[in-house]
């Protein structure tokens, strides 16, 4: 359809166009809820059946890195909300500034996630043929990043868990499948979000977003907040199982 | 049931009558409504056929009483059907205490069954009449389903768990059972016969281990007694080639020639194993000349023939497999 200024040809008013975009994004987010819902269900049932293995798996994650990442992502949600606010009140420089901040925080998140993933690779905790939940306790020399006392705690926990679940390795692998599946999907959404943010940034530098027309900022904002919400659930589900031992 | 075109399968268990009665009830109800609606449509089509090209219908918009009526009445009938069906189902899922327990294992593509005294059968099930039978079923690979139409019972056989079902055969005879959950290539021929016997006959059959044992089962037993199964692993990783799909296939031999693996070849391979060595294998198999009787050879052959339908491993197969399913 042809486009007259900011208005696409199929719409009659800017109001209608903004309304449609907003509603469209919300409906899309509902499909995303159902999409993540499927894997949440898989996670929940397996966690219920293989609780000791899931608790074991969870305790091998770094709470420090996960916690910091949660705060980073929350902060990026805040800067995104501020970018939308800047657009609504017409502060054009601020839009770009907040978008840059949001992207930067997103990349901090990626950086920390990369560190976590790399660690799991080194520790043979990636599902597949070489998966071995006992790898670090059997090869402490290969897992230099785990301190001696941490290793002791982990060994102790492994022994206790094996007593409960003789098939621990297989079931811990299910935990890690869920971990990589869920955080991987989340990261994929973040990557798409980062791409959208770059696109917004490019446009905002030309100053086209005004209080009258800022639909893309608003819509991408909704998406970014949704990705944040997914992480709000992933953090306790994956990192906080049975931490009190 | 000698009608040229039968509509109901034979009734041979305690559930058959219940299921058929329920079926007939739903059928009659449905017939009533479909005939009613069809007649109404025909009536309307005749009575309200357009007479002039410009004619329009009435301004009728609806009727609240009718709407409520045709919502509530079908609802009540439907709930009746639900309750009746639920009663039959709960009965079917709740096995009585005094059952004769038979283990059933499904694997691609055969059924292995075991009687309470340990007697094993393949694709055959013998049960006494008028006894409560419970099948405890597991699968070695994919999902199968044990289905006896004459008994009106079926249950999926799911890997990783046991499913159970029960029935009480009420009529002596021989009935088909089928695999009714699609399970791969030979799903359609993964079936057999349930033989319902007089209790005394059943007891005799049960104790008559050797004589009446079918050749395939006897052969399978020998196959492990003689330790054949330690080298001829089904997955082709053993010291001898896998025997799955061997019968009827072309074997390529060490000397470069090929041979069709028929009964004679199997017999020769048991008695003179070094005569025709399959390409890629060492002549390590001892001869069984004088160690097995003719009948035992026959049983072994029958068992190896029964492996024809088993999945042929990509490596370690005894033969270039015959195209599956070709006659």
């Amino acid at each position, binding site marked *: *359809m042809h486009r007259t200024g900011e208005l696409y040809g199929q719409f009659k008013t800017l109001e209608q166009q903004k309304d449609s975009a907003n509603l469209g994004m919300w409906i899309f987010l509902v499909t995303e809820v159902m999409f993540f819902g499927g894997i949440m269900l898989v996670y929940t049932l397996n966690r219920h059946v293989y609780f000791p293995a899931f608790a074991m798996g969870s305790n091998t994650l770094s709470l420090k890195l996960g916690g910091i990442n949660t705060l980073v992502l929350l902060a990026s949600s805040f800067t995104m909300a501020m970018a939308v606010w800047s657009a609504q009140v017409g502060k054009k420089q601020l839009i770009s500034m907040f978008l840059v901040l949001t992207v930067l925080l997103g990349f901090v998140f990626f950086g920390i996630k990369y560190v976590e993933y790399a660690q799991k690779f080194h520790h043979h905790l990636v599902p597949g043929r070489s998966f071995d939940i006992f790898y670090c306790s059997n090869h402490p020399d290969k897992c230099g990043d785990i301190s001696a006392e941490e290793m002791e705690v982990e060994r102790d926990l492994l022994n206790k868990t094996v007593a409960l679940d003789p098939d621990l390795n297989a079931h811990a692998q299910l935990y890690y499948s869920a971990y990589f599946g869920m955080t991987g999907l989340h990261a994929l959404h973040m990557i798409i979000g980062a791409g959208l943010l770059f696109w917004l940034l490019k446009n905002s530098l030309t100053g086209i977003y005004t209080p009258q027309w800022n639909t893309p900022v608003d819509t991408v904002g909704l998406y970014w907040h949704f990705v944040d919400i997914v992480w709000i659930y992933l953090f306790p589900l994956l990192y906080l199982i049975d931490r009190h031992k | 049931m000698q009608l*040229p075109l039968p509509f109901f399968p034979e009734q041979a268990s305690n559930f058959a009558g219940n299921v058929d009665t329920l079926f007939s009830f739903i059928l009659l109800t449905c017939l009533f409504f479909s005939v009613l609606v069809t007649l109404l449509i025909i009536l309307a089509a005749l009575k309200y056929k357009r007479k002039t090209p410009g004619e*329009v219908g009435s301004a009728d918009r609806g009727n609240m009483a009718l709407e409520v009526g045709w919502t509530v009445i079908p609802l009540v009938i439907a709930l009746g059907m639900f309750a009746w069906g639920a009663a*039959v189902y709960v009965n079917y899922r709740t096995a009585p205490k005094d059952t004769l327990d038979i283990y059933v294992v499904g694997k691609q593509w055969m059924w292995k069954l075991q009687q309470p005294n340990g007697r094993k059968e393949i694709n055959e099930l013998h049960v006494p009449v008028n006894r409560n039978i419970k099948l405890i079923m597991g699968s070695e690979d994919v999902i199968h389903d044990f289905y006896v139409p004459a008994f*009106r019972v079926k249950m999926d056989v799911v890997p990783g768990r046991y499913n159970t079902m029960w029935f009480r055969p009420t009529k002596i005879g021989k009935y088909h059972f089928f695999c009714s959950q699609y399970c791969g290539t030979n799903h359609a021929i993964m079936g057999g016969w349930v033989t319902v016997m007089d209790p005394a006959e059943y007891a005799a059959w049960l104790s008559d281990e050797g004589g009446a044992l079918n050749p395939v089962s006897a052969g399978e037993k020998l196959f492990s007694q003689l330790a054949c199964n330690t080298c001829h692993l089904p997955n082709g990783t053993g010291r001898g080639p896998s025997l799955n799909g061997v019968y009827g296939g072309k074997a390529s031999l060490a000397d470069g020639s090929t041979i069709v693996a028929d009964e004679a070849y199997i017999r020769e391979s048991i008695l003179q194993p070094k005569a025709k060595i399959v390409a890629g294998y060492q002549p390590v198999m001892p001869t069984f000349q004088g160690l097995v009787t003719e009948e035992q050879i026959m049983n072994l052959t029958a068992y190896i023939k029964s492996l024809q339908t088993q999945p042929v491993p990509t490596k370690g197969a005894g033969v270039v497999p015959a195209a599956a399913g070709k006659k």
Partner: protein
Amino acid sequence: MTMAPQLPEKHYLNETYGIRSWLLTTDHKRIALLYLFSVTLFFFIGGFFAMMIRLHLLTPSGYLLSADAYNRMFTMHGVAMIFFFLIPSIPAVLGNFLVPLMIGAKDLAFPRINLLSWYVYVVGAVFTLYSMVNGGLDTGWTFYTPLSTVYSNSAVAPAVVGVFITGFSSILTGLNFLVTIHTMRAPGMTWFRLPLFIWAHYATSVVMILGTPVIAITLGLAAMERLFGLGFFNPALGGDPILFQHLFWFYSHPAVYIMILPAMGVISELIATFARKKIFGYHFVAAASLAIAVIGFLVWAHHMFVTGQSTYAALVFSFLTFLVAIPSAVKVFNWTATLFGGSISFDTPMLYGLGFIGLFLIGGLTGLFLGSLGTDIHIHDTYFVVAHFHYIMVGGAIMGYLGGLHFWWPKITGRMYSEWLARLAAVVLFVGFNLTFFPQFVLGYLGMPRRYHVYPPEFQVYNVMSTAGASILAIGYLLPMIYLTYAAFYGKVAGSNPWPATGLEWQTASPPPTENFHVTPTVTWEAYDFHNRPELGLEVPGGAAHAPAHGDD
């Protein structure tokens, strides 16, 4: 009526020319035609597999295929027909064409997303076609694990990925419809003045939006399991194949409503137009669509009564299954009541409409046998099920689709097809269909399991009947393909409102201009209100104004 109608000078088909103008179009009407060609292709691919199946089953020992080949045939028949024909057929072809026209909009809310949805469909289709020619697929269209993820030797991964991708095209279409119906209605087009076709598509879109993502993640996990050995559905690794079935049917049962709800919408239009009467109990028919969409999500585990799920869950799901039957029954009763007091003509679309009611009645009622726990034990996974869902999907969805194509063909192409050929085809289809599938009910009750490449000889008579019917059915499908194509180029010019009908789509030229309406229409009447539409030139007894413009039943 006095002057022969003329085609408009400029319309959406001749506005621009060339391949690019089609492949890069954002016009919903052209995208509808792109979909029409693609789904027709898949219909004939799936139909070819169906013919192979029926020919093969002529004799008990199998007639022309090996076991593996037969298994590939029925699997690919299912995949092609369900994911690539039935699900997109009415929504993406007729819905795409008509939703904006019927509500008085210039296009859908997101035309470029609409085009994207077609491309997504094509990419998915390419993956699936690749799997079909390169190893085939033999898992059954249900992809049950662990057969599909561990044991099958066929090309499962590309097929699963193809279906996964195509799901997103469905999501995008549903999203577009929902937003369009919410925000793009013409002035005066209030919710209760919407044609029932729109209500049906609204309900369908809700199902697409909420169900499809679940099958996407499920097939995603299954593909990961096949490719990388993830273990969620593999019992050998601690997973659970029953969980796969729950997730699969959470979408795939409501998917049945994606197929049948739009067909019901079409039938409402046909009955009203050819009985020249407002649909009896409009509000109830509209509400029934929504009720089916919602309750339809609560019944999925009735596909799993014999998997060993808990007795308690089976009771709950069976109960809800009987509830979902009620709104369908309400629709059938209302359609029948509409005929009374109407002025009925038997043009081809109406033949499909009446045929639909008959076949859907049988299809729907046989669902009761399967929803009832007691009888399901016996007929689950037999030919009874096969017959039941073909009555719903072929007798229901395809009859609705063909009825709709015949009804709107003059709108889409501006030209009329040969009426007597079309009536002939409708009758041939009806006869062929019943002969093919009715014997399968009996086969099922006699105990013949589905997906069998060979069968005991006592089942042969019914199989031969079925194969004979299938041959007639095949001819019935070829006929419309031929005369509709011919009519698109050489048919008599139809005029803007040949039937005549009341919808907004008939207020504009045939074929419509690219922007649909030169002047945005304003709606002051209810749907199917023949009495207040003097411009249709009908003989309204006692003049106009029988019903108030803002009435409630």
